[in-house]
């Protein structure tokens, strides 16, 4: 019963609040995030600091803002511009194609994966 309540609370809380759940589509972040992985994104990760190289973020595609991308921060450029790349360069469209994105456009940081197995996202 307790488990069911916890699960329900978590399910609701991760839908609209600080944490959002995402399904990863595509293989450009494999093996860290294989296609089909379910992850939790912290939307407050960058309230007090800028994204750091190595962190995986969810960000709107600058060419098509309603489409969300998941990529890794490669570097920070002047003017709080973020250079993003997929882990699999050959299967990724990223800053090499569309350039940097503003740090302020980043939706949040991918912190945990909870399916197909659970873990902290590195």
């Amino acid at each position, binding site marked *: 019963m307790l488990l069911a309540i916890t*699960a*329900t609370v*978590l*399910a609701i809380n991760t*839908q609209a609040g600080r944490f*959002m*759940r*995402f*399904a*990863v*589509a*595509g*293989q*450009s*972040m*494999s093996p860290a*995030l294989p*296609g089909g992985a*379910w*992850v939790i*994104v912290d939307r407050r990760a960058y309230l007090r600091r800028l994204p750091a190289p190595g962190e995986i973020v*969810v960000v709107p*595609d600058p060419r098509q803002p309603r*489409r*969300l*991308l*998941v*990529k890794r921060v490669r570097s920070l450029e002047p003017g709080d511009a973020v250079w993003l790349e*997929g882990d699999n*360069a*050959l*299967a*990724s*469209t990223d800053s090499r194609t569309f350039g940097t994105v503003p740090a302020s456009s980043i939706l949040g940081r*991918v912190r945990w994966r*909870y*399916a197909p197995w659970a873990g902290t996202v590195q």
Partner: protein
Amino acid sequence: MDLFSRIFRPANVAHAHCDGPCGVYDPASARIAAEAVLSMEKKLAALGDGQDLASQNTRGRFIAIKEQQADLCKRELNILWNDYFKPEHLAAIPDLHDIFWQAAKLCSKNKTESNPENGEALLQAIEKIHNAYWKSKNRDVAFVRAS
């Protein structure tokens, strides 16, 4: 769907894609065009030098098809070179640009001349591209000819 999936299935999707519009590439399309070029060159050689209207008409058709297919071959090669291959591939295939350049030059040579040796050379160049392409996908695919 199990209970876990029903409760925790995310409502949002984050894309980790590469976004070629279809992403479907195969050097086979260039190979087929090159085979048509070689076939026309062989037919032209077999046709001889007859100057009667029928021979001239047939020769004209063969040349037109050779020209068209050599151009198509060049275009198919360019799609692979420009759209499929990325700078990262150069590490594993250092002579990539050179083999594409040679193949494109051979397409032109097949247009300006009418010699089956050029068609054969083009097919051999495409075989190199075939090997480079499938190597880049870590797949072992045999090079075959239709004719």
